């Protein structure tokens, strides 16, 4: 079940990224392609099989997991900026790009690196499962490390949540409001992931469901915005895309 969810998420992400290649070639809204490509890569790295292969290439010390965390940070940072910009959320923009956001990102990144260095990371395993069961000290470090990795995405998503909910209640075209709803659900799921340490192990699968729900909601939400734009027809599209091309 979880495997299916993982692979279908990967396929959806990959398809969404591929659909932006024409725009990439035309130099339109290129950062959307990078965001989707990063999300695809992040999904790939969070699936057991691919993770083991890639981490093996990187020396088998779970360096791939650290890489995954920073890929997620990058994707969420650029996506957050794009969403805040698109939905006209100036407060969100300030909180992501301004001092608060930068300081938070720097602190979290430093914490990740320090925690990673303190761990005995030998032995590839997705989610660093084998590292955490080595001994109590490593187990705790993995817990903190995971919490730090989820904190920044949760921060960005919480910042954007009010603007999304406002858009859902607005009088925008239906497709865009559905997109905003999906982005809001995705954001909420990411924010909820901060609570993972208190999730009882018995219902550990909930963590997977929340993780992949978040990614799927984001990707499908973004895809719907794209669909709405394409459906709006040529006339509107040309008007919209000319200013975008300058970016």
């Amino acid at each position, binding site marked *: 079940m979880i495997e299916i969810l993982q692979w279908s998420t990967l396929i959806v992400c990959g398809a969404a990224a591929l659909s932006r290649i024409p725009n990439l070639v035309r130099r339109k809204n290129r950062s959307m392609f990078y965001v989707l490509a990063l999300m695809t890569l992040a999904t790939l790295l969070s699936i057991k099989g691919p993770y083991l292969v890639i981490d093996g290439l990187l020396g088998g010390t779970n360096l791939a997991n650290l890489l995954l965390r920073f890929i997620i940070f990058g994707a969420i940072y650029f996506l957050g900026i794009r969403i805040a910009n698109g939905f006209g959320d100036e407060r969100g923009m300030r909180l992501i790009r301004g001092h608060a956001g930068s300081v938070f990102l720097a602190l979290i990144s430093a914490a990740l690196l320090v925690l990673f260095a303190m761990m005995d990371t030998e032995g590839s395993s997705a989610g660093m499962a084998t590292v955490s069961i080595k001994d109590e000290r490593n187990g705790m470090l993995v817990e903190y490390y995971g919490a730090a990795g989820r904190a920044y995405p949760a921060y960005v998503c919480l910042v954007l949540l009010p603007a999304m909910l406002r858009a859902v209640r607005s009088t925008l075209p239906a497709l865009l409001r559905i997109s905003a709803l999906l982005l809001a659900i995705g954001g909420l799921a990411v924010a909820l992931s901060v609570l993972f340490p208190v999730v009882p192990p018995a219902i550990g699968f909930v963590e997977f469901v929340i993780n992949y729900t978040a990614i799927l909601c984001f990707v499908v939400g973004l895809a719907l915005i794209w669909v709405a734009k394409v459906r709006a027809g040529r006339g509107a599209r040309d008007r*919209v895309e000319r200013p975008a091309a300058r970016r």
Partner: protein
Amino acid sequence: MPLPAKAFQRWLHGIAPDTSIADVCRLSGVKRTTLAQQLVRGKVAEATVVSISRAFGVNPVSSLAYFDTYRDLAGPQVPPTPQELVSQISTVDLLRAVIARSTPTAEAAAESPAGAATAAGRSPAPEQPAPAQPAPPEQPVPAREQQALSPVPHATSVKNWVDAIDDGELRHRVSAATGIAPQNYSAQLTANRMAPEVAIATSRAAGVGLTGGLVATGLVTEAEAGWNPGARQSALDMLSEGDLTALAGDRLQALGKILRRQEHDHQQTEKIWENLG
């Protein structure tokens, strides 16, 4: 709730006993697939009955009265109130009336465009070349009475109609009577839409003639509802200058709000596409 298919078949047999469904569709302009689907689902739309009635020269309102839901439409109807009549005049027509009334006098304007200019206290010299070009369309329409009101429904006719008959509690009564949530009702008004049975329920809750909502939603015409041809115009003429100006002002303000919101939504949409599309 649309009309039950069985009753519809009976009604159709009554007005067009020897006509095939295909011919009914051809004559009335109702799409064959649409009617077939409505019959299969067992629910025929009121608009279908109205179109078919028109094609067979039957009054749509009395056709609707054949069905249980609309039984009360049978027989003579309470005529619309002046407020209802005025609510069915488009904003542009109201503004035109404001301008017509504030133009010096109808006779002065009728005599000649130059005369109107002199009456307004302007020097006739610079005005004279101007009427030369736009004169042809203007001369046949000398006085304000000549300009016919545009037909019902106009762009905000449903909302204006409800506002015209609302005593402040109407929305609550309608929602209690029909079970429609107040916010859904408001959303319908904003979209200038209303289901025929809700329109009837609204009329009933407001204690006005039952056809008002059907006219405001454009289901039937003024004439089909039995409104006098000049009723709207005379209701407009009866408005005092102050009332007319205040009403036009309200309408303009509402229109401005709608347009601003549309512009804002449009900008927002483009911005989202620009950033995320």
